[in-house]
């Protein structure tokens, strides 16, 4: 326990750059950063509180206010689990510190427990942003006893444990399967997609099971008692102020953690070592080497780099793959199914509008460039010392994002257009729209990454999932899309949707031009300073 605390303290300071935070010479910048983070937390917490209030109002009609907390707890647990699958493998098995720790007199189970606790720390983010506001809203509108606050704190503390463990189990399974493969990165990407596919299939079927339960008047609580016992204990604690239920909730979480460490400890190092093992094996047979132009060589290098980091691929390509799956599915299912999968209302949106919305979302969320400079890491010197211009480097990175998005998007658009009887002109507009947005997103990612590079990291997950530039790229684009939609609602009385899209594409082209100038002037100088 003592060693666990020593290790946790050290890795926590290291993982979250605590030293840098408090040794910052620019106090104004530090205060600004703290305010910005607090503002974002406050804003997201406020949005969660609004949703919690809406849910509370809905459940008040049935005198089931406590269901607000139950639903929020399920949502938080699901998000921790699903988002944690990719992270878990990277955190447990791809950390650089494993070797040095294994040479120290620290038990393997302590090393593993520390990694999981560090992973769990990240998972408190959705707990604080979503669950805490729900508890606060509940306490404001529903009369509660003093013990409610103690129980809420305990629930907040233990809530991420089981979803984190479940994510780790899947992460373990992926690591175990891929460690046996020669092409580990490719195997990891494929196996991860298969697992995520299975989870998505299961979640669709769980909805079906839920529907069946409701249709057959099966008590929701009974169902929860069977499928989600910890959440059931949590609910009972809140509704009945039941101490036994509270203790059960805590016990289940502690047991889950202990059992996981006990069971998986035995083959943790085996997998870790197998994943980290590489050796020269084949005798090189001399053959004629192909030559490439400088730009092509840079692009090939960027593509190889991209596909060699599974977490990078999974984090960026997922939306595009889903778009393709949806396009292929549209051949076999009718429009109604596609609408219901996307949870869109056909009375509010035409098929063309739906496709624009869908493609805009997928393309805006796919930004490999927001991490590509950071991921050069210690190897940045290689491209910096090469006789190539900064613009060539940026171009190769932007091209990667275009190549991972556009071919699949074009195929998907054509398939969807064929199924939904979209005109050739509209299809062409969709392709042009996606291309302009893709270019805009790619450039924006490069700018964000140039501004906030993270070249020192223990695992690529710190860049791809937790890097400031990746965060800015995704949230920046979300705000950008929201602004586009807001503008449409402001002008829709005087402008048709078709004309609006044309104007939007014009605006995108202008932004692309401006960003190009920014990259060529500021970006080049900034890159020299990194």
């Amino acid at each position, binding site marked *: 326990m003592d*060693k666990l605390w*020593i*290790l946790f*303290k*050290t*890795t926590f*300071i*290291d*993982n979250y*750059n*605590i*030293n*840098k935070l408090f*040794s910052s010479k620019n106090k104004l910048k530090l205060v600004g950063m703290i305010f910005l983070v607090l503002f974002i937390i406050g804003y997201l917490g406020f949005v969660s509180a609004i949703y919690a209030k809406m849910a509370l109002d809905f459940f008040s009609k049935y005198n089931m206010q406590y269901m607000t907390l139950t639903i929020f707890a399920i949502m938080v647990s699901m998000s921790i689990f699903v988002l944690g699958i990719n992270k878990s493998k990277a955190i447990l098995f791809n950390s*650089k*510190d494993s*070797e*040095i720790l*294994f*040479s*120290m*007199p*620290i*038990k393997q189970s302590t090393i593993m427990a520390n990694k999981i606790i560090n992973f769990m720390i990240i998972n408190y983010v959705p707990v604080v942003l979503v669950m805490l506001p729900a508890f606060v809203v509940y306490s404001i509108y529903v009369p509660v006893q003093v013990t409610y606050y103690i129980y809420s704190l305990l629930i907040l503390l233990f809530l991420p444990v089981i979803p984190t463990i479940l994510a780790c189990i899947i992460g373990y399974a992926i690591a175990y399967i891929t460690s*046996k493969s020669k092409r580990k990165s490719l195997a990891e990407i494929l196996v991860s997609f298969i697992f995520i596919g299975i989870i998505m299939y299961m979640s669709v079927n769980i909805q079906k099971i839920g529907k069946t339960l409701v249709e057959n008047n099966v008590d929701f609580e009974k169902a929860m008692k069977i499928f989600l016992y910890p959440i059931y204990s949590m609910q009972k604690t809140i509704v009945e102020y039941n101490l036994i239920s509270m203790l059960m909730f805590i016990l289940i979480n502690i047991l889950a953690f202990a059992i996981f460490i006990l069971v998986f400890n035995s083959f943790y*190092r*085996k997998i870790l*070592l*197998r994943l980290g*093992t590489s*050796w*020269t*094996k084949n005798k090189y047979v001399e053959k004629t080497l192909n030559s490439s132009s400088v730009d092509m060589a840079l692009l090939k290098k960027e593509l190889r780099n991209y596909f060699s980091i599974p977490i990078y691929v999974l984090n960026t390509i997922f939306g595009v793959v889903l778009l393709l799956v949806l396009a292929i599915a549209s051949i076999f299912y009718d429009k109604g199914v596609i609408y219901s999968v996307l949870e869109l209302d056909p009375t509010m949106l035409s098929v063309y509008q739906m496709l624009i919305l869908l493609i805009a979302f997928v393309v805006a969320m796919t930004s490999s460039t927001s991490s590509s400079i950071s991921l050069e890491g210690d190897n940045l010197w290689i491209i910096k010392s090469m006789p190539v211009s900064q613009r060539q480097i940026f171009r190769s990175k932007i091209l990667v994002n275009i190549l991972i998005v556009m071919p699949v998007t074009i195929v998907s658009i054509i398939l969807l257009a064929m199924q939904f009887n979209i005109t050739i002109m509209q299809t062409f507009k969709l392709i042009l729209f996606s291309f302009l947005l893709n270019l805009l997103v790619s450039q924006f990612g490069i700018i964000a990454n140039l501004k906030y590079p993270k070249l*020192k990291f223990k695992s690529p997950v710190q860049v791809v999932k937790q890097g400031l530039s990746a965060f800015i790229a995704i949230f920046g684009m979300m705000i950008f899309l929201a602004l586009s939609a807001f503008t449409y609602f402001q002008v829709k009385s005087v402008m048709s949707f078709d004309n609006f899209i044309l104007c939007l594409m014009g605006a995108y082209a202008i932004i692309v031009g401006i960003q190009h100038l920014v990259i060529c002037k500021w970006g080049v100088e900034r890159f020299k300073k990194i």
Partner: protein
Amino acid sequence: MLKIQNLSKIYSEGKKAVDNISIEVKSGEIFGFIGHNGAGKTTTIKSIVGILDFEEGDIYINDMSVKENPIECKKLIAYIPDNPDIYEQLTGIQYLNFIADVYEVDKLQRQDLIKKYAEQFEIFDNLGDIISSYSHGMKQKLVIISALIHKPKLLILDEPFVGLDPKAAFTLKQIMEELCSEGMSIFFSSHVLEVVEKLCHKIGIIKQGKLIAYGNTDDIKGDKSLENVFLEMTKNG
């Protein structure tokens, strides 16, 4: 102090990285381990310090098997890897204090030894800085200091002189000799054959996982230089 008995390490695809090697390093001895790149030096070292599992043979530290008593064995060892991959976001002193905590070094000893070695390696003034701001050589010095502050009985070093400036390399050699005279055993791999020749009581030459020479330095090199002997023994692939 260190006894390697018929050690073999086979990777999962059947590649035998270390093939039936036996080495003994007594208290107060310095052992030099040399070989080409990929010969099996680092695999052997990682097996000794408990990073890698091994299939055949055993390794004993102070008569304790590393397989049966891994934690007790590790308490007696200090390991300096070939690449100082350490917690970059800690300050130097935080890292040293972390190591001292893990090895349960008492406050007075850690204070004294950190000061002593940090001054010897001339990085005392930088201990409050974040490690990511250190040069490669400074990181290497920090790792060396971290290995010395818990007074190990066996020091295992993988290419310790890489990245060190001439003065630091000289200081390290001096410290190694000093600690050996106090009874510590040292096992190190290096490509700097002049240093191995001057410093080591015993040497081992490894080639494609097999120990092709092992014994007292003087017996192995005879009248020739170690460089000549090594090149002769390891030629033809």
